[in-house]
Structures are given as C-alpha cells and as structure tokens.
C-alpha cells in the first residue's frame, strides 16, 4: 500500500478530522425552522445565511434547487422567498441562538419559515417537512426546531434520519404541555434518533423545570426557559418563555461546542455526552431529564472531551453528594 492510498483509506475510515478541518474554515450554518426572521434587526442582519449561488430578486432559480431567489432561506408556509417574521417567535429564537453561542461571528442563520397562524395543523406540519428537506439539501450543520406537536409522522422521522446520515444535528423543543413525553409523545423531540437533542425548560426563580415544560427520560437536558430576553421584529426586544427558548439556548451552546471542538462534529453520541455530562446537576430535575441538570455551556466548552468525563468519577460523586444532601433535607423537613 502506497502512502497516498494509506492516507485515503485512513480518511475514509476516519472522516472526522476531515470534517473538522472543513468546519474550521467555514461558518456554521444553523437552519432555524420557525416563523421567520426580521432580516433588518441590528442584532440579526449580519448573521443571515446567504445562498451564494442564487442571485437576489432575478426571478430565476439560479442554483436550480427548486426555489426561486432563496437567498436567505425560504417561506414554506406561503411558498415564496419572503421570510419576514410577522409573529415574533422566529426572531426571538434567532437572537437567542446567536447570543448563547458566544461565537456569533461564525454562525449563519438559514431562515426556514414553516408556521402560519392561519394555516391548519396539517399545513404547518407539511411546511415543517419541506423545511427539514431544504435544510438537508442545502447542507445546514444544525437544525433548530423550537416547535413540535403531537402525532408521529413517518416522513418527518425519515427526513431526520436522512439528516443524521449527513451529520446534521436537530435540537428540538420538549414541548409545553407539562406532560411526560415518553407516555404522550411529542414530535420531533420523541423520535429515537441519535442526532436529536431534546431540551426542557428551566425556571430559575423557582429552581425547577418550568411548570408547563414537558419532561421524560428521553429529554436530554434543560436550559433557561423563563422570561428570556431576545430580539423581536421591528428592531425591538422582548421576553418570552417556553421550551422554545430553552431549545434555542441549547442550540447556541451546541454551536459553540462544534466551533470550539470541531472534532465532535458528526459524532452525535460524543457531542450529546459532552452536553449532558457537563450540566449543572439539579435534584429537582431528577428523573425528569436524562442529565437531571441544567445546560452549562461554559463547562461543556471547558471540558476537553466527553470521553474523559466518563472516567472522571468526581463528577458523578459530586452529583450523588448533591442528591444525598437534597434527599436528607427533604427527609428532615418531613
């Protein structure tokens, strides 16, 4: 075997270094499947993904991807290139992703508008599916879906599986029904796919999961989801609550992780371990999420590799000590 063929075989078997290298030199593209964006907002306008193969407003599908003038994304709700956010949710989510990433200059947001208040549930679902398909075709790195609903959908499952095969993450909201999603099911959060990171919402003042947040052992972690400040259309700002916000914050943390540790890209298990094992343990989350903890982006970024965390017994001991302490307190109170 020649040296070159050895290198070729090595790269085929170990694609991560190649992917990581490629990621170092390009922006991280996050497809935000939501209600659109205010592209003129001072905090957002410099972070719009640009489809460089498309010439703006020439009414021609220059890149022949089936979408005319899809320069910054697409409106699947109305099937056009107008992505302005009349609702507010999408702009809020977009701002949160950037703000929590700590590396917003390396992030581009692909705006995929799926939701319209006037559309039926089935229409919104159909638009969601088309948006996921677009994100896959246009090779986004992460999909942020601060939405969801009841009803398993085979096509949605297949598309997210396709995203998995392409090395794409999907950060999904656990939902706001205050229910156990193992029992009730909330999608796409409930799909058992390795590339999905599911996020519940935490309420800091009460120091437990937001009352309306869904929970369950298939939810990976929680993040701040109560009265979170972020961008709103019309260059405004406002506070919103829900698992949507928690999802966007976790998405920002994932983006930060992939930018700072590009070797994790595409290794879903390691990436998730990294986020899950570095959470700040909260005994009130015990049994409600996999990590029983709150996202700790700093810690996730600080730790070299999640694999080392597996062997670091002090983390688990620390968690167990905190649990024992809280249980003792509870027992004493009763």
């Amino acid at each position: 075997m020649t040296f070159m063929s050895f290198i070729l075989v090595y790269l085929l078997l170990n694609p991560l270094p190649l992917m990581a290298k490629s990621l170092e030199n390009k922006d991280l593209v996050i497809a935000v499947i939501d209600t659109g964006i205010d592209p003129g907002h001072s905090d957002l306008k410099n972070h719009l993904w640009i489809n460089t193969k498309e010439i703006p407003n020439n009414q021609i599908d220059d890149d022949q991807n089936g979408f005319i003038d899809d320069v910054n994304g697409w409106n699947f709700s109305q099937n056009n290139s107008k992505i302005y956010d009349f609702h507010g949710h999408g702009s809020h989510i977009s701002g949160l992703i950037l703000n929590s990433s700590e590396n917003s200059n390396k992030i581009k947001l692909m705006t995929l508008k799926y939701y319209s208040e006037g559309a039926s549930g089935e229409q919104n679902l159909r638009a969601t599916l088309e948006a996921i398909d677009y994100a896959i075709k246009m090779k986004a790195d992460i999909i942020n879906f601060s939405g969801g609903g009841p009803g398993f959908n085979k096509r949605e499952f297949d598309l997210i599986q396709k995203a998995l095969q392409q090395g794409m993450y999907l950060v999904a909201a656990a939902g706001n029904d205050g229910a156990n999603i193992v029992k009730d099911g909330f999608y796409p959060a409930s799909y058992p796919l390795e590339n999905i990171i599911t996020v519940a919402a935490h309420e800091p003042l009460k120091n437990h999961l937001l009352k309306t947040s869904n929970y369950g052992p298939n939810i990976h972690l929680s993040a701040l989801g109560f009265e979170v400040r972020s961008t709103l259309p019309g260059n405004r700002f406002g506070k919103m609550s829900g698992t949507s916000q928690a999802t966007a914050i976790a998405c920002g943390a994932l983006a930060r992780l992939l930018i700072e540790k590009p070797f994790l890209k595409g290794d879903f298990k390691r990436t998730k371990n990294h986020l899950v094992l570095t959470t700040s343990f909260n005994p009130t989350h015990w049994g409600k999420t996999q990590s029983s903890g709150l996202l700790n982006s700093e810690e996730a970024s600080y730790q070299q590799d999640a694999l080392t965390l597996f062997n670091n017994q002090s983390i688990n001991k620390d968690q167990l000590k905190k649990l024992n302490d809280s249980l003792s307190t509870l027992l004493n109170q009763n």
Partner: protein
Amino acid sequence: MKPIYKKQNLILFLILFPLQLLAKINPIEGSFQYELELTQDFKIHYHSRRLANNLFGDSWCSPIDRKIIIDSSGSPTLYICDELFIQNYKKMNAGQYISVDDPSDKIIKDFSGYTRSFQNTQEKYNNNGRLIESQNGKQKIKIFYDKNNVVQKMQIGKIMYYLSVQNFGQISEMRSKNTHLQFKYESRKLIEYQYDTDIIRFRYANQNLSLIVKNQWSTFILYDSKDRAISYKDNLCEIKVQYLTDFKIKYQKNCDDEKEKTFAFDIDPKTLSLKLSRLSRTPQSILNKEIL
C-alpha cells in the same frame, strides 16, 4: 331559498362538547346553547347566535315555534324558530312535496291544511301555515289559536296549559291545573323564569351574545364575545374556546380537580366538521413582555 343550516350541522351541534348544566358550546360557529325544561315534555332552547323573535323571546326556540309559508310558485317552506332552520320543498305530485335536502321529509296538502312527516315526527299545520299538532313518538302537543292566529292554549300529553301572550307576542304565562309558570321579558328578551317559588334569571350583555344564568343551585356564566371567543364557568370547570383563525380553534378545559387540558381543532370549511389537530407543529413559547 337555500337552507341556512343543514340537518347534519344541527346534529353536530348537539354532540359537540356536552357540558354540565344543560349548556352546550358549538365552537364551529362560536355559539352556546342552553336548555330550559318547562315541563317534562316541553323544553325551550337558547341559541346565542340566533336573534329571531319567537314565542319565548329573542334567541329562544320552543317546539311550537314553526310555521309553513307558501312561496310564489306554490311550494311550501318550513321555518323552524324563525331563522334557525329553513327547509325548502319541491313538488312531487299534486299536493305532495318533498324536501330538497332529504327525501324522507315530506309534506302533503289537503283541505284542512298541511301534514309533514319526517323520521319519527308528524306535524299538522292549519291552512294559515300555523302548527296545530306535533307528534314525536309518544310525545304529542296540540296548539290552539284564537281568530287572530294568536296562540291561546297548548295541550302537552294529557295536560292543557292556558297561555297568556303579551303585546310583543311573547308568552308571559303558562298555567295548568297544577302548574303556574311565569316569564318576564325586557326588550323582547327573556329575563326571568319563575316556576312556583323557583326563579331563574338571565342577563344578556355584549350585543345579545352573553348569557348569565343564576338559579338557586348554581351560578354559571357563558360569555361570548364579538370575536367568537367563549368562556363558560361553573362551580367546577372553566372552559374557554378561542378562535385562532376562522378554521382553527383552541379549546381549554380547566377543572378544579384535574390538570388543564388544551385541544387544538381544525375546522374543515367544506363540511364544517371539527378535526382534532393530531398532526401539527407549533412554536413552543409565549410572549411575556415586550421591551422597547
């Protein structure tokens, strides 16, 4: 003339969201209904979106609020509760007419008036188109009029009720050997119903679309705003129906002893039927505060 409401929709009204205290909400059109039992076989219904002037006041419909009117072509049209339900008939043979919507609904004209047969019901109308007899299974009602076509008395089963009618045509009294029912109106709206010592009061607000009912057992409020949002409250539950769009509603039920339940429905504009939005994807947050 086309029927304003088809029968299938009327049936749908009645099976949707059965609530306590005989009140029903119809989220499709944003209305609520309330049923008041005057005697064992005689009930009157309130329908918040029907403003027709009937024997028990605006928006209230009784089993005897129906008449036949002959159009210019000689075909009969049946009006139930004035504008709630209109049924057209076409001529089959001489003196025989069939409903344009339901072939089992027929009217036969003879020298004494009209006889309508439909499912389990047989109704007789005089030559002026006034209902004089209605039989539904074992339940039989006979209605008697004076020479001015004003209703005078009514026989329900074996009991004869003598009626007093006030100036605007509303029934103010129903008296039998053992029963004395009284009705008070304000601007053609029923505001008080008295049965012996029991009194139920009705209050209307917001362009006739709200109804507050008080009786000695409970108090509950049906509130129906202009945008068709409805809330219903009694001692146990609070129910809110909110229109997100013309074809999408949110139904919330909050009872003391259980967790709040929220359902989303899509309305099929063709059939006006409700479909639970099992397949939907929606944003998962609410706006708390805007900061300028």
